[in-house]
């Protein structure tokens, strides 16, 4: 497993994330609506709005997963912070970054991951809107465009609380 390197603007990124005042807040329907829609649209058993904090990923909204956070070093979403483009992993077992990740070899047995970065107006990335499956999958350009739109809606909701 390869732990994701820190983004070059990590300090500013964390400051922007904390300024949103969203970490450790209760679940909210406005976010749950987006993850539920994403899970349904993509027939994905898991859909998350994940915010990547200093040492953890914290889940503002989750479908199909019982935990509300994981350590950052095993988080797929930590890898998605490195680009504003979506991170697509069609088959985790064929990707050396993830093949022996505890979330792949153990519960929830992730085989497919696609995460659209939550890019704030400042250009800093707070986390991802992601869909996860326990089977390998492919996505096409239309799928990524739809996920991108849902990500934009999630960012709009994040900004309702603070301006990063």
């Amino acid at each position, binding site marked *: 497993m390869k732990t994701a390197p820190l983004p070059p603007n990590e300090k500013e990124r964390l400051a922007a994330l904390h300024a949103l005042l969203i970490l450790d807040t209760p679940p909210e329907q406005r976010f749950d*609506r*987006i993850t539920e829609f994403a899970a349904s*649209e993509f027939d994905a058993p898991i859909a998350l709005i994940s915010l990547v904090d200093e040492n953890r990923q914290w889940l503002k909204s989750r479908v199909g997963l019982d935990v509300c956070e994981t350590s950052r070093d095993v988080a797929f979403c930590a890898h998605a912070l490195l680009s504003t483009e979506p991170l697509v992993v069609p088959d985790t077992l064929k990707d050396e970054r993830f093949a022996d990740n505890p979330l792949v070899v153990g519960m929830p047995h992730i085989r497919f991951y696609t995460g659209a970065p939550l890019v704030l107006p400042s250009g800093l990335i707070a986390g991802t809107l992601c869909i996860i499956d326990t089977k390998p999958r492919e996505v096409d350009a239309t*799928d990524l465009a*739809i996920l991108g*739109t849902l990500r934009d809606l999630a960012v709009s909701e994040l900004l309702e609380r603070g301006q990063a």
Partner: protein
Amino acid sequence: MSAAGQRRNFLLLEPDAMVRRTVALTARGTGLAEIQEAPSLKTAQEVLRREAFDGLLLALDDDDQGLGLIERLRSGQTPSPASATVAVMVAQCDQTRAEKLRVAGVNQIILRPFKVKTLLNAIHGMSL
């Protein structure tokens, strides 16, 4: 996008805000089409009266009230071409209803529940 490279304009009558927004924003963002959103039949009637569309995507209730929009379109009572393509989204459709919709001038029937991708593919087909 049309053959001439000009972005097509569609009217989307869909009460589900999440579906409506996602279709409209994705179609716009990918350059597929401009989508005018109508959350209600009343709004759709008003928009159809003042704007020209290349196609209509209409959510129909079981009572088919929205068929009046198609009647106005087909009879040339709107700024849109009377031959504009029309797709409808319905919760159920037997042969009798399908024939009723066909006679009313519906070109495509989409059954609920549908994916956003299905609607985008329909828009793509209507844009050719």
